[in-house]
């Protein structure tokens, strides 16, 4: 999967948000709020082809979590991104 073109991660009032700003995203009138872990993953995987395994490995590099938790959290996050319209396969 991939993050669709035109999404920008920004700092907003001390929080992380993603807004649709590219040419392809002019009608995307939503703001997606990310926690700092999700923002870290977004930064790492944007412009790349990635999968759940890659996301989990990124989490394991940075946080003290079990592999099981990392995989489950990555799956959950990818699902929420897909639901928000951020992903293409």
């Amino acid at each position: 999967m991939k993050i669709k073109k035109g999404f920008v991660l920004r700092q907003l009032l001390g929080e992380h948000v993603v807004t649709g700003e590219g040419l392809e995203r002019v009608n995307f009138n939503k703001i997606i709020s990310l926690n700092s872990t999700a923002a870290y993953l977004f930064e790492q995987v944007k412009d790349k082809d990635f999968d759940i395994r890659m996301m989990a490995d990124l989490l394991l590099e940075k946080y003290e979590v079990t592999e099981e938790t990392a995989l489950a959290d990555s799956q959950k996050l990818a699902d929420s991104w897909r639901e928000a319209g951020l992903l293409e396969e």
Partner: protein
Amino acid sequence: MARKTFDIAGYTVSLDLAEEALWKKLLNMVPFETESSEKPVLEVVQTTQLKEEEPEPLLVSDDEGFPKITVGKTPCGNWFFTMASLGTRPTSGRCVCSEDFSRAEFQILDASQAGFTVNNVMMLLYALRTSTLGCLEVHASVIMKEGKAVAFLGKSGTGKSTHSRLWLENIPKTELLNDDNPIIRIHPDGKVLIYGSPWSGKTPCYKKVSVPLAGVVRLSQAPFNKITRLSGIQAYACLFPSVSAYRPERKVADGIHDSIEKVAAAVPFFHLECLPDAEAAQLSFRSVYE
């Protein structure tokens, strides 16, 4: 005189018309005329022949009931815009603009739509040019009271103008500042002011007046009246869709982001679910002013 200068939200812009008679169709600009010798931040000139050919558009914005606008880039790196008053109408004008939105030439293609074309070119270029100068051109209806103002936002047809009218009818000492396209400007000292502009939709209300912005209220229709305070990201998200911009241009998107963030932090925001009645106006009035 073919060239005139205007003071819009404190920024000087100039407009040079090849057809002098066209000024008679631009009476909405008259209150903003200035003798200021300050160098304009935006200089717009009418021409009978543009120097560059129309490129393939990067973007076509064609929402029902709104002007159709196309955005392109020429081989020299200039912007190229075309506009029609509605998607079903032929192109009424086109415009070539420098990369930084400071200088532009436009051509009128349909004389019967000349006023629309000039206003649309000016409105569009002003929004883009001043997006990096602390300005937000917003789609809103604005009421003044006690030397400050409240802006009503909402999708087209939600009842922004109706809500303003309800304030005028039910709340003493109120006055309409602008009914469609006011400008919010964030000053370096952090003050957030709202300005009237030469563009006010269907209501002729062209006031060169500025007052502090006391509140922003997003309206949505409901079978009851209820108001909710918005804060932080909610306030940002409330204003974001009502700002005129071209977000694919990163400098514009960054400027707008910065300004909306400052307004969201400095001014109280509300969401009003409402009926078109006096009680709704009283409710938003008490929330912003008490």
